[in-house]
């Protein structure tokens, strides 16, 4: 199935999200769609998937113009999409979610898994460890991604669109995904892979298409381009700087003590997690997603009810079972999935930037007061669009992430909990968020940094702890850490308690 998009234009108010964009999709080929945050990648693909309508332009399938006015119409034409913001129903089970979009779900489903096996067949293939009868709300992001992929595979689609599928995956998970992507393409489908990671491009794309500020600036063969040239194409005239690692101060005072923490949330459980972070230290948390990372982050930030343990910052107990949440938190928190966990989508960017200080606001405050304040943060973090009155929901995925970073990294928090802070960010923006985060470390804040990107962890963290099944499987100084050791801890092997350095 040969799909061509011609002259696609889409305007949101003052923003031209897509400006006369052309793109050809050929069977058996993987196209990587690249571009900065807000370049219009998701918008273009949402138009192809019928989720949004173009203002102008045409979609042709095998030369014939088609109208795609709903995802249903797209699915009927054999077009499937995995969204950047997940589109699974959290309250339903994995199996039910898969059955929902499955063509051959029988009318009578029954409770037996037998008549209901077809929808999970692909999931069994790509992720046998996911229990199909678990509610989706209990899965980790990485697992949700695989469920989403299984959903699209179920469509037997001729065109498969993946919107930043690897942004939260561990290297191993990414490799598994690349293999699936290559397999789908080998099966004769056209694949569009939206990504910010260059390794994705070189691992599985034959062609790259680069967008900048709504326009398609280049389409070329992967084999004819170097990573550096690609980066220059993406950012245009701007220059990218990578963040500088933070020097480790030798005899820094301990700043934060996560003392013997146990907690259970819908996302998972942690038991007896004990970590000390010194002033200016960046402690990385690695692990396969779903092993308690989210619960740990929520618990430290004060969003989970603790079963046992304390969080002590600067000698003061901040979180303990049945403790009052302190009014002015010394903890900054960048949670995963910002759209769901960290913003009020229907409120403006300016108000969202104010949320942390909402208790200090005067009783009667005028919106224009915080507009000025917001503008400063918006320029500092390069949030696009720059209008402080735009609703948070209208921001692109990466810009939402920047919005949360801009809010949380204001002021002088003593402890920063950051979950995948650069998820979905383009190179420049990722460097900017790292810089802001590290500036706090240089100032003396303790940083708890949850990431699935081992490369980044090894480059920037001072120590790396690995979570497995809600417990610390091991902890090592980055200087001594090896990928093999970390990998072994991730799957629960050789719990080497002695590796914890005497640190206090």
């Amino acid at each position: 199935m040969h799909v061509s998009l011609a002259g696609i234009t889409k305007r949101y108010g003052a923003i031209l999200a897509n400006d006369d964009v052309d793109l050809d999709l050929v069977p058996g080929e993987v196209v990587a769609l690249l571009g900065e945050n807000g370049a219009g990648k998701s918008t273009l693909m949402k138009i192809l998937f019928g989720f949004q309508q173009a203002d102008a332009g045409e979609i042709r399938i095998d030369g014939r113009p088609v109208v795609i006015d709903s995802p249903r119409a797209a699915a009927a034409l054999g077009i499937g999409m995995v969204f950047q913001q997940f589109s699974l129903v959290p309250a339903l089970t994995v199996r039910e979610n898969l059955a929902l979009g499955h063509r051959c779900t029988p009318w009578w489903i029954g409770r037996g898994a037998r008549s209901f096996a077809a929808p999970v067949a692909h999931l069994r293939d790509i992720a046998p460890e996911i229990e199909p009868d678990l509610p989706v709300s209990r899965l980790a992001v990485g697992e949700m991604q695989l469920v989403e992929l299984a959903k699209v595979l179920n469509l037997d689609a001729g065109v498969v669109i993946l919107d930043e599928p690897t942004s939260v995956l561990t290297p191993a998970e990414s490799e598994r995904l690349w293999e699936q992507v290559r397999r789908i393409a080998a099966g004769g489908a056209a694949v569009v892979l939206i990504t910010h990671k260059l390794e994705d491009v070189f691992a599985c794309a034959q062609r790259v298409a680069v967008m900048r500020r709504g326009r398609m600036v280049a389409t070329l063969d992967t084999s004819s381009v170097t990573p550096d040239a690609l980066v220059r194409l993406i950012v245009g005239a701007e220059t990218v700087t990578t963040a500088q690692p933070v020097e480790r101060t030798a005899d820094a005072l301990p700043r934060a003590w996560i003392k013997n923490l146990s907690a259970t949330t819908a996302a998972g459980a942690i038991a007896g997690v004990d970590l000390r972070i010194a002033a200016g230290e960046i402690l990385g948390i690695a692990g396969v997603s779903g092993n308690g990372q989210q619960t740990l982050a929520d618990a430290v930030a004060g969003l989970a009810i603790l079963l046992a343990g304390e969080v002590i910052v600067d000698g003061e107990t901040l979180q303990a079972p049945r403790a009052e949440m302190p009014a002015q938190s010394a903890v900054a928190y960048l949670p995963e999935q910002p759209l769901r966990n960290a913003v009020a989508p229907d409120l403006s960017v300016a108000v969202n930037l104010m949320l942390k200080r909402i208790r200090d606001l005067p009783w009667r405050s005028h919106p224009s007061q915080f507009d000025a304040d917001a503008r400063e943060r918006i320029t500092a973090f390069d949030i696009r669009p720059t209008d402080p009155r735009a609703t948070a929901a209208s921001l692109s995925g990466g810009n939402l992430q920047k919005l949360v970073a801009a809010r949380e990294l204001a002021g002088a928090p003593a402890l920063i909990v950051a979950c995948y802070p650069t998820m979905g960010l383009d190179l420049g923006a990722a460097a900017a968020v790292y810089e802001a985060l590290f500036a706090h470390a240089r100032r003396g804040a303790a940083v708890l940094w949850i990431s699935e990107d081992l490369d980044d962890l090894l480059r920037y963290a001072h120590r790396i702890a690995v979570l497995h099944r809600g417990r610390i499987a091991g902890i090592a100084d980055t200087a001594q850490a090896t990928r093999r050791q970390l990998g072994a801890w991730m799957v629960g092997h050789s719990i080497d308690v002695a590796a914890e350095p005497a640190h206090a």
Partner: protein
Amino acid sequence: MDSLDIVFTGFLISALRSATPLLLTLLGECLGQRTGVINLGAEGQMLVGAMAGYGATAAFGNPWVGLLAGAGAGVALSAVHALLVVGAQANQFASGLAVWMLGFGLSAYFGAALVGQQVTAFDSIDVGAAAQWPVIGSVIAGMTPTVLLALLLVPVIGLWFYRTRTGLRWRAVGESPAAARAAGVSPATVQIQAVLVGGLLSGLGGAALSVDYTRTWAEGMSAGRGLVAVGLVIVARWNPWWTLPAALLFGGAEALSLRLQTADTPISAQLLHILPYLVSLVVLTLTCLRRSDSGTPAGLKAVMDR
């Protein structure tokens, strides 16, 4: 059969009969709320159902025709809610109130001529050998067709909702319209269907009330049952299976208050009349005190937040 047994079965039968109109309405409201639409108009739909059902029974001399007419009237009135809420994106509470008032006015206007008329009752159902079964035999024999219908609808709707593809789609729409849309389900279509089914069931409930339970027509005779249904959905945890015990709560309390009235208790009849509402309110409060909002469809929370 000893007298305790007779008292017990008698009470159970009257509780069931009193619960039936409410149960039907509750089922309909439950389905609507599970797709993310709250319908305060259930009260008005019951009223037009009761009026149309009563009128049709009087005109055609057949209570079954009455039930059909009641259901039809309920659907017609709920179409207004569907149109306003799904079609025009109106506020659900405002639209529901409007539908309620509309139903009240229409039923009062067209029902004025029906006051004092007589209708033919349902023939008692022949349950055959089942009447001889111990204990429940006499309960079964005491049932009217509407009671049986409502009792049958609970498992039918319960199974349909949790065990079929369409039920799955409805649940998905209530939890996340965006995700449902991405999966190729049209949330608007599902919500319209659910509101209309809610109208059908509440119209049927109204007809069961006037044609079978009280066998009279009086203005405003549903007496808040429709609104009680809106609240009891919470007690039923948005689960069609739990609508039966929730409705029996109200029915049982009403049966008890009737018993107490005929037994010449010194409590005034007016006070006894509020007993079923009081019980519903107390249970509702207790349910909500437990705080866990498990079962609330996420799409409905979005409605409340507006």
